[in-house]
């Protein structure tokens, strides 16, 4: 895996997000949803895998990479059976989702909101 590709691909995906933020009326949550679903759909046609092979974390760290992991898990599960096709998506992303929920909860409990300056 090459750091240069990770930088360029990761940077480009973020730039697309920035352009969407600046030039459209889409709010950040909507853009996140669009990115995740785009990752799922691209991977459904095996189109995101080449990007991951090329750029590694540059393609998996941005949110389309989350959609990619979801779709990949579901597709790998589908080869085993219907039940795995249903559970595969969450299984493959369980680490990230669980960390986000549990650690997010802890942080929200431990810290207090900062006043806006």
């Amino acid at each position: 895996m090459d750091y240069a590709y990770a930088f360029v691909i990761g940077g480009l995906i973020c730039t697309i997000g920035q352009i969407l933020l600046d030039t459209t009326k889409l709010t950040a949550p909507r853009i996140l949803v669009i990115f995740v679903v785009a990752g799922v759909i691209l991977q459904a046609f095996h189109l995101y895998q080449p990007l991951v092979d090329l750029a590694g974390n540059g393609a998996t760290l941005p949110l389309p990479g989350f959609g990619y992991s979801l779709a990949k898990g579901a597709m790998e599960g589908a080869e085993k059976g219907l039940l795995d096709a249903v559970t595969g998506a969450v299984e493959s992303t369980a680490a990230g989702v669980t960390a986000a929920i549990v650690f997010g909860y802890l942080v929200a409990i431990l810290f207090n909101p900062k006043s806006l300056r």
Partner: protein
Amino acid sequence: MADNTTGVPKKEMAKAYEKYAKSFTPKPTYVANCVRAFIAGGLLCILAMFLQNKLMAMGQNEKDAAAIVTIAMICAAQLLTGIGLFDSLTKMAGAGVIVPITGFANSMVAPALEYKKEGLVLGVGGKLFSLAGPVLVYGISSAVAVGILYWLIGGAK
């Protein structure tokens, strides 16, 4: 809406107001924003790759290393949100920190902190998902649909 005296239709009034308000809205500096997002996003990805390579050199397999990196990125972003630094990062880097998984992590903690006063259940517990919920709902739903479609296609063979 007391503009009826002028005989101007409400819609045109609203349009004129929008135009008027727009002249006071600072124009985003498109190019500078994009450059900052590009650099910040690229650097984050390099950091993730560096961590993953280090972990793999320490003997983790690729899947575990990737999971650990994801967890580390999420925890770091949420901690920064907790101590109030993530907002400054967003101001500097824009989509460069929003589009990576760090933005998703931030979008869980920020509203949960904000609405902490509403209580532990509906405040913290509920608001954790007020922004991340849509991402999970649409992401997981579409992925499960893809999985079932694949199973159907595979079964038809």
